[in-house]
């Protein structure tokens, strides 16, 4: 299959992530999800959050970022593991669960991207915890934030990427 050297990024590329996010969270966690209105820009969380970042490599390079509020983390981990015990702290097990959830969403998105003619693979998740910090992607200016709305609050999914052109990233 011949791939275009400089694919135009369209809404379809963002939908490649939205569809698996909804499907995976519903199937693995048991939470119904609706995609909210996307916005361009970044946000600084004013409350404690767990942030999971996964790199995209290949015909697209960039990052997919998930931000979970800590109260929602408890609901998600319980849904993933079936563990009925209340989580008192976001420990290694909880971080692992969120990393795996993000990994499955990003991995599933690679199938949609391939159907758009793009070969992409994903990196291992990186996790950050806390509040009042800003994520900066100096080489890729556009950060698109897609709220994933659940009955227990929103999960913030941000996607930032650029198509590869002759070995470089085109902003």
């Amino acid at each position, binding site marked *: 299959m011949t791939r275009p050297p400089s694919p135009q990024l369209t809404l379809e590329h963002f939908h490649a992530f939205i569809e698996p996010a909804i499907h995976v969270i519903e199937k693995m966690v048991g939470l119904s999800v609706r995609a909210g209105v996307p916005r361009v820009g970044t946000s600084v969380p004013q409350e404690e959050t767990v942030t999971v970042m996964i790199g995209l490599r290949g015909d697209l390079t960039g990052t997919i970022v998930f931000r979970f509020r800590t109260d929602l983390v408890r609901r998600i981990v319980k849904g993933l593991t079936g563990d009925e015990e209340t989580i008192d702290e976001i420990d290694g097990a909880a971080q692992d669960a969120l990393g795996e959830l993000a990994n499955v969403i990003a*991995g599933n*998105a690679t199938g949609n991207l391939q159907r758009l003619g793009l070969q992409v693979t994903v990196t291992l998740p990186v996790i950050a915890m806390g509040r009042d910090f800003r994520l900066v992607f100096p080489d890729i200016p556009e950060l698109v934030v897609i709220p994933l709305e659940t009955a227990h609050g929103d999960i913030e999914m941000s996607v930032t990427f650029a198509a590869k052109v002759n070995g470089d990233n085109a902003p």
Partner: protein
Amino acid sequence: MKTRAMIVDDSSTMRQILRGLLEKNGFDVAAMAESGVEAVERYPEVKPDFVTLDMIMPRQNGLVTLEQIKRLDPNAIVIMVSSLAAEDSIVVCKEAGAADYILKPFDEAKVMAVLQRVLKD
């Protein structure tokens, strides 16, 4: 005697999910490894009837691990269990000798159907 499984996944959450699913369906989870390197080291000693193997892992990915296990035991039954949905990932694993490729998130019926088929062959 129960069919013996080895679960290889860097995520403790996924190991726990798979272990629960397999034990519920009468399998003996003989070993769990959190890396491909550990899986290859322990494979000769454990001698499982089948392996479930993740693709995206630190240090050594699932494809390299698959190739090394197949070199140790050409008859090894290795089922990839991965989030990577791109068709080329599936093709390359099957070409390297994977018995099947299960996409995460999976459901129990799918996993059991695959196991019934590959263990019967």
